[in-house]
C-alpha cells in the first residue's frame, strides 16, 4: 500500500473526489473520471471500497437510546424557570428591576428621614440643642410609616386604632406619617414588625432615636 504522501497526482485527485462521489455530489464528468481511474488503480480501488463501507456504517440509525420528547420537555421547563446560574437576558432584566426598586426604596427612605427631621424641627420646640442631639424632637420609639396611596382613610384610621398608634407628625412630601405606639405592652420593635407585615403598608422604618 502506498503511503499517502507518495500519492501520484491522479491518486491525490481521486482521494479528494471520493467522499463526494459516494454521496452523488460530483459532476457526471468527475464521476466518469473517477470510475476510469479506479479501474486502473488498485490502491484507490481498495480505498474506495473502504470509503463505501465507512459511509454505510455512518448512515446506520443512531445506536444510543434517546428520547427527544423527554429532552424537549426538560428544555421547555428550563426556559420556563431559568435558575440563578443562567445568564439569560430574562435573568439580567429581573436583576435590573430589583436593583432599581432597591434604589427607589433607598431614596424614599432617605427622603422620609430628612423630611421627618425637618418636620419635627419645625413643630417641636426643643429649647437647648447640643451637637450630639441630632434628632432632638423624635419621641423614643417613633416610626415613619408610608401607607399605600390606595389605602382609604377609614382603613388607615382603623389600623391606627387597632394597633394603638398615634400620629405625631406628617404626612410629609413623600406621604410618610410619624407614629408612636400608645400601647405600653408592645415594644417599639414589635410594633415595627407588626406594621411591616400589615397589608397596605409600603414602608415602616424606625426614626433614629436621640442618644
Amino acid at each position, binding site marked *: 500500500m502506498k503511503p499517502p504522501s507518495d500519492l501520484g497526482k491522479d491518486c491525490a485527485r481521486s482521494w479528494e473526489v471520493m467522499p463526494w462521489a459516494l454521496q452523488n455530489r460530483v459532476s457526471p464528468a468527475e464521476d466518469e473520471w473517477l470510475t476510469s481511474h479506479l479501474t486502473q488503480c488498485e490502491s484507490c480501488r481498495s480505498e474506495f471500497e473502504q470509503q463505501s463501507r465507512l459511509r454505510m456504517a455512518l448512515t446506520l440509525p443512531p445506536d*444510543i437510546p434517546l428520547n427527544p420528547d423527554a*429532552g424537549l420537555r426538560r*428544555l421547555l421547563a428550563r426556559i420556563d424557570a431559568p435558575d440563578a446560574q443562567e445568564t439569560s437576558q430574562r435573568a439580567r432584566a429581573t436583576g435590573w428591576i430589583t436593583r432599581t426598586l432597591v434604589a427607589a426604596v433607598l431614596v424614599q427612605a432617605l427622603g422620609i428621614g430628612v423630611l421627618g427631621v425637618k418636620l419635627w424641627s419645625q413643630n417641636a420646640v426643643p429649647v437647648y440643642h447640643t451637637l450630639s442631639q441630632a434628632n432632638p424632637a423624635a419621641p423614643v420609639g417613633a416610626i415613619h410609616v408610608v401607607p399605600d396611596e390606595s389605602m382609604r382613610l377609614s382603613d388607615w384610621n382603623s389600623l391606627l386604632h387597632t394597633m394603638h398608634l398615634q400620629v405625631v407628625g406628617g404626612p410629609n412630601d413623600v406621604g410618610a406619617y410619624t407614629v408612636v405606639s400608645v400601647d405600653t405592652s408592645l415594644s417599639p420593635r414589635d410594633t415595627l414588625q407588626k406594621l411591616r407585615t400589615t397589608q397596605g403598608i409600603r414602608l415602616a422604618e424606625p426614626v433614629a432615636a436621640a442618644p
Partner: protein
Amino acid sequence: MNDADIDSDATDRMLLQRMAVGDRTALAVLYRSYYGRLSRFLARLTRRSDVIEEVVNDCFWIAWQKAGSFHGDSRVSTWIIGIAYRCGLKALRQHGDEPVEDDVLVLDRFHAHDPDEDRELRDWLAKGLNRLTADQRLVIELVYGLGHTLDDVAIIMQCPVGTVKARLFHARVKLRNTLPALAGEPVRQKESMP
C-alpha cells in the same frame, strides 16, 4: 446546496424568526427536526445519552436566546451544528473522565436487537474511530454522516478550510492503516463502482 436543502433552510429560517418572538411551537418543531442529526453527531464525542441530551439542550437553549441575532450569514443547520460543536467540546472537558459503565450495559441491551450485519459494521467503525482525535471523528461524521461540504465544516468548526481538509486527510490515512485488518467481510457489491 440542492433544492431540498434550500427548502429546508427557508423553513428553518422561518422557525428561527418565530422563536425570536418567543414562539415555543416553533422551538419544538426545530428541536425535533434537529434532534436526530445532533445526537448522532454528538455520539462521536460521547457514548453517554445523558451528556448527549444535555448538550442538545444547551445548544437549543442558546439558539432560543440568540434566534433574533441570526442574520443568515450561513445556513441555519450550519449555525445550529456549530453551536452544538462548541457545547459538545465544553461538555467533553466537563464529563470526559467520568465513568460510563451504566451506559455500556444499556448499549449492550440496545444492541441485542441489531441485525448481526449492522452490529459488525458498527464494531468495525467504532474500532476505526477510536484511533482518531475528537476533531477527526467529528469531521468524518460531518462529511460522511451528515453530508456537509468542506466550507460548511469550516464554519461549524470555526477554522480555515485547509484545516478541515488536513483533518479529513489524516483521519482517512489513520482509518486506512487501521481498518483493513479489522474488515471481516468484503464490501457489498452494490456499494462498489458500477
